[in-house]
């Protein structure tokens, strides 16, 4: 812990010039003003590296895959040297008992100083037997490591919301981590996977400023999750103009019109894809011609289909969305009214009154 980030970076052959460039990139990425470049630089020069314990529960490792592909090669180097990644069973050289010993070691040496980063989530069914790490249910490892963590980061939609393994009917009872760690403020970085720059940006912020970034109601960092894909989408002008892809092979698709009608969930998805892009800003789903599937939103697997913008409602025995169902209800109401009107005509309720009073009530 005596080493600062800057020292580690210099020892890895990163020049001061490159270091300052990185600080600029991060200040921009975190939506901070140019003045903050020097704050970040100073912080990284003086603050010790933060130990990070990165746990893996029920997951597919796409978060790790995304993280190690952080677009800016420099950013990746810097971030990996900025934090002291002391446990990550996917990336670390150690294995078995040796690896598990690292956890106890860090917890003993740096209580309440290390960051717990969680990829995936614990299944609660069958006493957590659906995910065993080091011979014990993952739930136990998670609670144990969280007990002395300074901050808890939920990487990806699994840890944040549950994601695919928590999709209905959720046989393993996979549960997002904030529900099993009620005493912790969990920073959610949802996405399947989350954007690499968002992940590194959050780590940078915590390291540089020694505190958590500002979070929204859901516990997501505002700097990356306060706008929808739709708000910054380069196809938004087509949406407003009324220009849509109607079919995947039509003129609109060739011209790159808005994908709203083919189910794009951009208008209901909070993420930074349309700003940062993926793979060094090369592209993102909409730019590649496919609608957003809303992977960073709660239970997006159950809000399908991906190619319709209204979700199907379950529990009615048929696959129908809100409008199809509503139209049926309205039709039923109309039929009911018509039948009642016909019955009224046949039965003529209150007829004797009307005949008696027809002479005096000419107002209608």
């Amino acid at each position, binding site marked *: 812990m005596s080493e600062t980030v800057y020292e580690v970076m210099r020892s890895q052959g990163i020049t001061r010039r490159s270091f300052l460039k990185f600080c600029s990139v991060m200040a921009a990425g975190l939506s901070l003003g140019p003045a903050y470049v020097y704050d970040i630089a100073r912080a990284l020069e003086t603050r010790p590296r933060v130990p990070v314990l990165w746990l893996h529960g029920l997951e597919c490792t796409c978060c790790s895959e995304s993280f190690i592909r952080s677009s800016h090669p420099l950013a990746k180097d810097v971030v990996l040297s900025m934090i002291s990644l002391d446990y990550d069973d996917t990336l670390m050289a150690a294995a078995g008992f040796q690896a598990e010993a690292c956890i106890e070691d860090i917890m003993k040496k740096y209580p309440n100083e290390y960051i717990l980063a969680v990829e995936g989530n614990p299944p609660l069914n069958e006493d957590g037997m659906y995910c065993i790490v080091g011979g014990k249910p993952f739930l136990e490892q998670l609670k144990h490591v969280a007990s002395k963590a300074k901050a808890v980061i939920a990487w990806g939609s699994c840890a944040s919301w549950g994601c695919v393994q928590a999709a209905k009917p959720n046989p393993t009872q996979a549960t997002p981590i904030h529900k099993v760690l009620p005493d912790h403020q969990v920073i959610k970085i949802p996405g399947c996977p989350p954007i690499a720059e968002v992940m590194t940006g959050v780590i940078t912020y915590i390291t540089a400023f020694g505190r958590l970034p500002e979070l929204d*109601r*859901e516990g997501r960092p*505002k700097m990356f999750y*306060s*706008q*929808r894909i739709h*708000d910054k989408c380069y196809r938004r*002008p*087509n*949406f*407003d*103009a*009324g*220009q*849509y*892809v*109607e079919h995947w092979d039509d003129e609109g698709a060739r011209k790159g*019109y808005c994908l*709203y009608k083919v189910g794009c969930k951009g*208008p*209901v998805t*909070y993420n930074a894809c349309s700003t940062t892009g993926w793979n060094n800003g090369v592209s993102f789903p909409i730019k590649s011609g496919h609608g957003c599937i*809303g992977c960073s*939103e*709660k*239970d*997006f697997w159950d*809000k399908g289909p991906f190619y319709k*913008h*209204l*979700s199907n*409602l379950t529990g009615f025995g048929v696959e129908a*969305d*809100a*409008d199809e*169902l*509503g*139209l049926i*209800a*309205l039709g039923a*109401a*109309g039929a009911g009214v018509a039948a*009642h*009107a016909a*019955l*009224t005509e046949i*039965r*003529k*309720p*209150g*007829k*004797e*009154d*009307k005949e*008696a*009073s027809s002479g*005096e*009530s000419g*107002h*209608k």
Partner: protein
Amino acid sequence: MEGKEGHFTFAPEGETGTCYVYEGPVRLWHWINAGSIVVLAATGLLIAHPFPSVMGEASHHFLMGDVRFVHFVAAWLFGGGFLVRLLWSLVGNEYSRELFHLPLGDGAWWSSLAYEIRWNLFLEKRARKYYGHNPLAQLAMFIFFVLGSVFLILTGGALYAEGLGEGSWADHLFGWLTPLVGQPQDLRTLHHLGMWFILVFVVGHIYMAIREDIVGRQTSVSTMVGGFRIFRK
């Protein structure tokens, strides 16, 4: 025809006079509200199922933008009108309170409700007369219209907050709802269902109002135009 403030009664069997029921602001609100519902439903459906695509440069068109604008203007009339109507119930006459207040503790109200249900099932020969709303209409208005409107205003406000963004007034006012119902996509689904809920009410409301005018013994549609309820023998 003086007010029966405090407890519910229906009009006497022999009532054949007139009664001033709906005050000016209530009538004005009713028709503005009716118009806004029509516009909201039409533009809402167009937002959900937009017109066939227009071709050409995006900068030459603003079709969806205009449809959404009209939806928002109508939403202000609907939501703002609802608020004004709620405030009017504090200062208006006793009938103006019936929309928001069900006299659930009143036995006479419940027995009249039962009577109205039987009347609509053709089990009663004679229509009862009411100065204000009959209990069945009142109950339907409360459940479908009042609760439905609150639901639509809240979900619509939360959807509007998505556009205005984090920290906006709409976000402060309605944003809390989004995590409560799930996520923005759920908000959308619920807002759609809310619209159909109101539209089902609209069908029943219009039908019942016209039917009461014809087979009942008091005016209904014209009362909402002129304000006076005229009773027949």
